[in-house]
């Protein structure tokens, strides 16, 4: 696609028509709200809005739906930071340092930096979209079964390696997640596995139910254990604006991880959860103070926030340029805009350049709107921390159940939710890292299917590992990420002459 300044400007003027600005604002606001509520993700919100888009201008419908999508990326981290209950897979990484920050009395600053990081990540990705949409779309095609399999192995290994000092627990956690992901129909053979004759389980256990169970329900149960303890000092929420020092620490992580998230977002099927987790582990591994990660390091929050928003923008590239939805949410959007008569695919950029550029401009304006909205909301949101537990926890429980129901319209999920609530509680009590389990549930089934398909495509394991330059690079990165914690602690030991490797 050539960059035609005139078309981009035309797109800009279409975007700032009052009606389109209204759709951006409405979508951004709705997205922020559904993102905050556990389980009610952007895919559900957009799906429920589809009947409203019937008869809308296709471009406006796309603007509205996209605004919900990236609005949810802003909103998702709000509940991660304040309540340790992520609203979606891509908001999990925000709990690692966001929640500790809130506990240290820096809730306001955490919310602010996450909005700023989302903005910058989003803007980097919009620029990337303008310049690189076409070449990246063809790069993404080079990811076949072997490449996806190794990308997922790499992501899992990076997460396990994060649990420094307790890697064994990380592996156990990951293995449980992989086991959960085997429930449901096996695509390659059509065989039902571990469904116990229950129709609802034939499509597997929804990872969002696992997330809501382990985080939201688990967190409530955990706090219930200490409910009779006298309430301590009222938690301070701190300033709502970041300090110069905090900005200095976050600046580069934000800028670095915009492109990282964007590239991963472009890969169909990878998405925000993988992007934000990889960004987090990247920052921790190159940080000079890795021991502060997990204790409320601001860059540990800024990096994944920049990354997941960039991924949300990147996910539109395969959708618009090739007609391939890169995530659950873009799949819903794709279905909706096809109903309205648009034909996403290789010809869209040639046939409807005005629409494409209006859309790109809307993402630009939408991100600006969202950062203002979210920073304005900081003052109100931090009040959640003042809410007495007897009000707050029942509300969280109620939202968890409502959110779960909207995922599959089945009460079977309630049982699964409660089971994972207890799993979350025990993992917390026994100090097991939760992230490897969740990530394994998210990628496990895709990883397995891709592995099985690679076995058909390549004669043996060596063939899979050396299938292409991409696979070789991924293998090396996996080895480095698993070996790095050992290497760095060995180096540190030599340097300091004493053992100071601390448990995370």
């Amino acid at each position, binding site marked *: 696609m050539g960059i035609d300044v005139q078309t981009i400007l035309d797109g800009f003027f279409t975007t700032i028509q009052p009606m389109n600005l209204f759709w951006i604002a409405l979508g951004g606001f709705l997205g922020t709200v559904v993102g905050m509520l556990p389980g009610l993700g952007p895919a559900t919100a957009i799906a*429920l809005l589809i009947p409203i888009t019937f008869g809308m201008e296709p471009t406006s419908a796309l603007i509205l739906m996209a605004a919900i999508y990236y609005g949810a990326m802003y909103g998702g981290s709000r509940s991660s930071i304040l309540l340790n209950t992520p609203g979606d897979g891509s908001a999990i990484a925000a709990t690692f340092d966001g929640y500790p920050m809130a506990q240290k009395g820096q809730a306001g600053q955490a919310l602010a930096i996450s909005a700023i990081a989302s903005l910058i990540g989003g803007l980097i990705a919009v620029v990337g979209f303008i310049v690189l949409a076409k070449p990246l779309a063809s790069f993404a095609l080079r990811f076949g079964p072997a490449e996806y399999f190794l990308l997922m192995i790499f992501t899992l290994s990076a997460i396990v390696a994060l649990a420094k000092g307790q890697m064994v627990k990380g592996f156990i956690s990951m293995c449980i997640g992989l086991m959960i992901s085997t429930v449901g129909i096996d*695509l390659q053979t059509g065989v*039902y596995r571990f469904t116990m004759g229950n129709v*609802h389980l034939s499509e597997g256990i929804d990872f969002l139910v696992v997330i809501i169970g382990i985080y939201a329900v688990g967190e409530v149960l955990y706090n219930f254990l200490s409910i009779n303890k006298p309430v301590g000092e009222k938690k301070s929420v701190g300033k709502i604006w970041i300090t110069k020092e905090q900005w200095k620490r976050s600046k580069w992580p934000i800028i670095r991880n915009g492109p990282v998230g964007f590239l991963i977002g472009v890969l169909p099927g990878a998405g925000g959860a993988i992007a934000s987790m990889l960004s987090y582990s990247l920052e921790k591994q190159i940080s000079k103070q890795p021991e502060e990660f997990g204790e409320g390091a601001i860059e540990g929050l800024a990096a994944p926030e920049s990354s997941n928003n960039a991924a949300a923008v990147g996910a539109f590239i395969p959708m618009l340029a*090739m007609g*391939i939805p890169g995530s659950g949410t873009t799949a819903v959007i794709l279905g909706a805009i096809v109903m309205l008569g648009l034909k996403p*695919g290789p010809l869209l950029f040639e046939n409807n350049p005005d629409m494409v550029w209006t859309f790109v401009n809307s993402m630009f304006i939408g991100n600006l709107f969202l950062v203002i909205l979210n920073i304005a909301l900081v003052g109100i949101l931090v009040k959640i921390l003042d809410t007495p537990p007897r009000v707050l926890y029942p509300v969280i429980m109620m939202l968890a159940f409502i959110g779960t129901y909207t995922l599959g319209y089945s009460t079977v999920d309630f049982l699964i939710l409660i089971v994972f609530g207890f799993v979350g509680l025990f993992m917390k009590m026994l100090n097991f890292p939760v992230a490897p389990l969740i990530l394994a549930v998210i990628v496990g089934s895709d990883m397995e299917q891709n592995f099985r398909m690679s076995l058909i*495509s390549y004669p043996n394991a060596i063939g899979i590992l050396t299938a292409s330059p991409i696979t070789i690079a991924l293998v090396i990165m996996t080895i480095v990420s698993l070996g790095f914690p050992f290497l760095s602690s060995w180096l540190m030991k030599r340097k300091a002459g004493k053992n100071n490797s601390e448990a995370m």
Partner: protein
Amino acid sequence: MKKIVGVAALSFALILGACSSGNAGEKDDSAYPKKNLEFIAPATPGGGWDATARAIQKIMKEEEIIDQSMTVINKPGGNGEVGWQYLSKKDAHTLAIDSSLLITNNLLGQSDLTYEEFTPLATLTTEWISVAVKNGSPYETATDLMEQLKKDPASVKIGIAPGLGNNDHLSFVKAAKTFGVDITKLNFLVYESGGDVMTSLLGGHVDAATMAVSESAEQHLAGKFKIVAISADERLEELPDVPTWTEEGVDIVFPHWRGILGPPDMTEDEITYWNEAFSEMVETDSWKQLLENNGWEDFYQDSAETTQFLKEQNEMYTELIDESGLQK
């Protein structure tokens, strides 16, 4: 005390009667439908079935074809199984979207329901299924591809989604069988969604793929891969250069249809009501626009025709699934 119990029992009976008025003894059939209609999309919001159901709801209302209001209800799970199970226990005020999955779920051993338990009301649309090969493929035509499969059935990687036993898969199996290929040895890579199949064919990770024409047409027109055959009875307007299987010497026509299913035991009058409603709906401009936007073809058949059609489909699928070795 007794009195109160009696009153309670009576009012309970009255409420029950009111709730199940559809099959209660009231004979005033001219008033059908008597209450709000439920329209089941056996899938989550956002998918093709849900979208179809909501579009029908909108057209029925805006064109004032039916007076009663219609509510779309999502009952996802088990390839439609959950929704149809629900339908099987309802009265004539509930309808559902259906497709060949209603037949194949049972044949594949994934459901106890059969199409015979329901009242088929209409067939509405069909999509045709395409077979495409990657750019630079050694197979120029569908015949080339089939010749190769006849020589060595396992030598070609074929991408399909989202599961074995679905239409995309079985249409290919049927074509191959008709050509004389050993269909038990075919090498399918099963992807999760049609989008994934497209990606893998564009990237050259599979040699051939089968998917709905609505999914593949844009890529073919842009020259990103080549459709070598379609399952329609004649060439399509938007793809004038693509031959049908019949032209390639493989005598098959394979629709991927969607229709409307009613609960068991609907009366003649109720069936007539829907014959009128749907035949009116398919003539509206908004319906035609919907078909065009989605790349669907009009395939309207009324209740009696659909009943006969389902019977033929059932025979065809039974034979195909038997021979492909998929039956449990």
